[in-house]
């Protein structure tokens, strides 16, 4: 890995779910693990999330949701990433998901889902082990 590439992570809450404590806690945990966190908080539309992720060139999107709207917003976000040629950005989710939804979400491309009780260290270690910053822009005249 090139020297000193910092991992950039977007932490956002799609939809109308206003409970942001979990997202704030994970954002802080990511900061304490040495990552740069772009925190856009609550009430994000999938379009806003994808636009932010691309402008900020993040390696990872962490979606926090407890409202049940993941069945719409998560696939929609994956769709938008594809439309914008940004499928190389990994997406993970945290919050409350019915057990039967988890395989469906993974099928649309969500890499991992963290449920209540997941330890912060487990999550940050997972990120360190599974997410790498991409390589530099190639330059050909």
């Amino acid at each position, binding site marked *: 890995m090139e020297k000193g590439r910092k991992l950039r992570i977007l932490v956002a809450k799609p939809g109308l779910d206003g409970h942001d404590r979990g997202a704030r806690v994970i954002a*802080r945990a990511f900061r304490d693990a040495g990552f740069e966190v772009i925190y856009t908080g609550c009430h994000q539309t999938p379009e806003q999330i994808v*636009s932010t992720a691309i402008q900020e*060139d993040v390696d990872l999107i962490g979606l926090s949701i407890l409202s049940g709207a993941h069945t719409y917003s998560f696939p929609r976000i994956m769709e938008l990433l594809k439309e914008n040629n940004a499928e190389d950005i990994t997406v993970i989710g945290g919050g409350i998901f019915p057990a039967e939804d988890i395989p469906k979400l993974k099928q649309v491309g969500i890499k991992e889902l963290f449920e209540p009780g997941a330890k912060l260290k487990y999550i940050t270690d997972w990120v360190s082990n599974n997410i790498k910053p991409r390589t*530099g822009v190639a*330059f050909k005249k």
Partner: protein
Amino acid sequence: MNIIEQIVSGDVRATARLLRDIDDEIPTAREILRELYPYTGKAFIIGFTGSPGVGKSALVDQLAINYRKAGKTVGILAVDPTSPFTGGAILGDRIRMQRHFVDPGVFIRSLATRGHFGGLTKSTTDMVNVLDASGKEVIIIETVGVGQDEVEIVNSAHTTIMVTVPGMGDDIQAIKAGIMEIGDIFVVNKADREGSRKTVRELLTLVELGARRRNGDDWEPLIVETEAIAAKGIDKLYETIEKHRNYLLSSTNEKWREILEKRARIQLMGTLKDHALQVLLQRIEAHGAYLDEMIQKIVEKESDPYTVAQEILDKELGWGSSATAGTSE
């Protein structure tokens, strides 16, 4: 399309990727910056500085609306501090600018200070150049503004705006002259709060005190009261910025050119320092142990930093001590 063509045509992903490479000091970025340089120089650059919590992000958010209405595309660089302990950062300025997220005419980039001087000044200036080359007509830099570094940043802006809030009265009196001198416009945000009239008066006094140092044709800093969250005073701020821009562009003075020269100097010095240090450190690293030995010598008082530095320069760059400037009789 190669990367240059992509950026010049405004491709968001290509621009974002290059900004990241600059942030992470990837060597190929310098080559690309070189090729992009001819495309820079068109953007109007505004610097916002002021203590944390005064409302800079909210002001930038509101101001961007005015510029969009005027048909201008906007680039925003929002700087937040890196944790000195963990090296990580929470970059939360964007949260105040949500209305612009899906506007293709606005590009927002959050950056962390990464704790070092070079990261704050040089890469921010490089990023401004990239946004400039990508066609953003107005670029707003928002920094934390409590140190000397931030003074450098806003020196590379055309218009510098210092934001404060009421209730910091005594602090204004104590503010060092340097910071006050860089403000082209002073904003008293949260002007609905008690003490805002007093704050405005104190700023006016400081502006008048500075009058003696100004020539006749110099710009006299203006003061604007705003309530960013309530969108009050923003039109006035926008007009005041445009007033300053027109002053800079007017043919009776050389202000615009002075700023270009200042920016060119900062860029050149920054690039020289970074590149030279990088090369030097690479050479030292190739020699492995000896830097640690030197440090031990310094700790044991067998040598000192000045002697060690000279020895390193002599060894790595073949400089004799006769090359030291200004020491000859």
